[in-house]
């Protein structure tokens, strides 16, 4: 409609960012303010460190999920995949303990197991979706059931525990760190930085968004859409492996309830962060804010007795829906 004027060469002037950008940031700031008012311990080093370490697992997975969703996909299997990988890791390390003894080699073997298992699991999901052409929802729903039941079977309905000596040796990976920052947080930050760079500045991120926006346009624009989608699932699988490496030393065990509902928390974090569920647009920094919002709600409810912690899920649910409504208004008001 504005056809008559030639395109101005000038760059657009900087104005206040739209609600879709401002919303999640404001929500996080408000949450922090509320937390600090309600409980003086909220901003203490111990509490912040605890919240961040616990968010790191979901956070690492959610970064991978951001790519999958931006490319127009979905992965429901990550929670049970994490449980299965944890179980597998524990079994492998326990089995290798007699021959390798307590020490770095066993841990490295466990880490390698987790990474390979994650990569293979992601590859299977991705191949079924891109090569066999089955809906992502169906493939990953199936995988979710399979991994969940595999870990239950491996644990014979109970719990798989890491050998006691190993557990003590492995513990610092969750509880230790450098200069007071724990390892999970460091790894989370590294994953976020890499993810954000590739998403917003990388050719891959552009291809992911194009694939999610329109498979056809991307195909006609020389984007190998099958490969792009496959890579997103492989990367997510790999990140589930990384998250599990951080998670196992925390409890030193895996059971049928490990990683329960992680997939939904990760998806929720991605959506709160402003990534579009049907694909085409995603941002990693938003996902980080989404993860922090979800874990701060839980933390605040635990620290104060204003609302029962049992209502945590309800409050998170309200926040998720609210976030999406706010962002939609930000988009239509152009």
């Amino acid at each position, binding site marked *: *409609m504005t056809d008559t004027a030639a395109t101005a060469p000038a760059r657009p002037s900087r104005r206040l960012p739209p609600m879709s950008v401002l919303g999640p940031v404001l929500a996080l700031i408000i949450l922090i303010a509320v937390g600090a008012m309600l409980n003086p311990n909220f901003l203490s080093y111990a509490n912040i460190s605890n919240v961040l370490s616990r968010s790191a697992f979901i956070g690492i997975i959610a970064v991978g999920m951001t790519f999958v969703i931006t490319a127009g996909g979905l992965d429901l299997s990550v929670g049970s995949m994490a449980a299965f990988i944890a179980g597998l890791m524990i079994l492998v390390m326990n089995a290798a303990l007699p021959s390798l003894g307590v020490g770095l080699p066993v841990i490295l073997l466990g880490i390698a197991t987790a990474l390979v298992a994650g990569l293979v699991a992601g590859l299977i999901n991705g191949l079924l979706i891109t090569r066999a052409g089955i809906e992502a929802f169906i493939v990953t729903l199936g995988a979710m059931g399979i991994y969940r039941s595999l870990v239950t079977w491996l644990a014979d309905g109970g719990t798989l525990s890491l050998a006691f000596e190993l557990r003590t040796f492995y513990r610092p990976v969750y509880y230790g760190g450098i200069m007071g920052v724990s390892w999970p947080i460091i790894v989370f930050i590294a994953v976020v930085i890499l993810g954000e760079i590739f998403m917003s*500045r990388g050719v891959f991120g552009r291809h992911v968004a194009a694939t999610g926006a329109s498979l056809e346009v991307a195909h006609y624009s020389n984007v190998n859409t099958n490969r792009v989608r496959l890579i997103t699932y492989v990367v997510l699988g790999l990140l589930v492996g990384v998250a599990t490496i951080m998670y196992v030393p925390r409890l030193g065990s895996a059971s049928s309830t490990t990683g329960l509902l992680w997939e939904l928390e990760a998806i929720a974090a991605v959506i709160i962060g402003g990534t579009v569920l049907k694909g085409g647009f995603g941002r990693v920094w938003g996902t980080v804010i989404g993860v922090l919002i979800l874990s701060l709600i839980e933390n605040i409810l635990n620290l104060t007795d204003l609302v029962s912690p049992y209502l945590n899920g309800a409050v998170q649910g309200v926040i998720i829906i609210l976030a999406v409504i706010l962002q939609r208004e930000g988009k239509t008001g152009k």
Partner: protein
Amino acid sequence: MTPFLALDNVSKSFGPIEVLHGISLQLRAGEVHALIGENGAGKSTTMKILAGYQPATSGAIRLEGQAIAFPTMRAAEERGIVMIHQEFNLAEPLTVEQNMFLGRELRRGPFLRRAEMARQTRTQLDRVRCRAETDALVRDLSNSDKQMLEIAKALSREAKLLIMDEPTAVLTPNETEILFEQVRELRAQGAAVLFTSHKLDEVKAIADRVTIMRDGRVVHSGPASEMTEHQMAEAMVGRELSDLYPDRAVQASGAVVLRVRDLDVPGHASGIGLELHKGEILGIAGMVGSGRTEAMEGLCGLRPAKGHVEIDGQAVTIRRPSDALSRGLCYLTEDRKTRGLLLGKSMRENVTLQAIPRTAGVMIDRAAEEAVLDRAIADFDIRAGARSVKAGNLSGGNQQKLLLAKVMQSDPRILIVDEPTRGIDIGTKQQIYRFLRDLAGQGLSVIVVSSEMQELIGLCDRVMVMREGRITGQVTGQDINERAIVRLAMGLAEAETSPRREDAYHD
């Protein structure tokens, strides 16, 4: 006589920007009215106001003399005003019959009268001579069948005013004629018809009255018989129009850059053979559905195909688009909205998508991207208002220019353009023709696939014709005329001038 529907000094603003300035328009019963103008002149907005899709900001809408405001499009429909959109308004996963009766299903109590609906659907489709099955899914229909279904649907509603936005853009000449017969019948029955078209010969052929818009204003309104096509075109662009088509270069006689033999695209085309010379513009004609697009997409690795392809005398294997692009072979799709552009993304992201400027191999070079967009806007005269505008908010002509700019980023040496001027105005067409001819002059080779006969005749050095997945012949230079092409396209003539007939008729 009171007009059936009239706009009286109507203006329309989006936010602070006024896009229609005091439009007056009278639509009379028993009259076919053509609304023409360049892309972005305000035709679509005017139509939407008439059909109750959008309210006017100021001015009056009069239905049979009475000022009226349609609160919804449904209210307008109840008064007999039916609009057919340029983008199909069909539910793709439903059947033809379900679409025909969508929202006004025939029923007996709580049950649907399916047999009766199927029968009536058949009758309506037969009326426009559409052969689609009533139980076929709409998403499986060709574009022209979809258009015919839309038209049949509108006709079945006993419209008193039928508004059509570019109804013939996706129709073959034959289907266009069927549509016009229906329009004439409607006119005889006393209905008013308003349509837009970029094809001025059609306007001349069917319209009683023509209104010409430019920059949101009506610049002329009067009987169609009083104007020539040339005068219409000049009134649309507001300046003297020199020849629409650029001068042909001296007969192209460069080396063969592309040689194709026995190209098979399963289900669509077979035994395709062609040679393309340096600096040549080769046209490919044929009915919609003759396999032109599929053959070219197969050639460029966009869909599975088998065949022998040589580029610069070297045999090449092209399995995916990147194989074609790396050898300088590039295809511009006929479908800019669903295959060409990411409508929700900015111009910058669109223009570089096919060849993103990189640093360190994996990172996007943002400064280079901005520079690419600057150059594209200047070279292709893209008029967008703001740089940050989404591709979907550009007018058709500007989208097409953006798409051209996009494919040119991969530095093609052989460019295949499919329907390069579909649904765009005459001024932009002229720019695109000139651009393609310039490319040929610089030594590129161009293949133009088109349903527009005049375009092929005016632009191409040589035209090959396809019918039912095969090449039926070719015409060259002085022999390129409408009659020769139509005869080949209809399968009425054996090729006489083709030097490579054995390719088209191999075993």
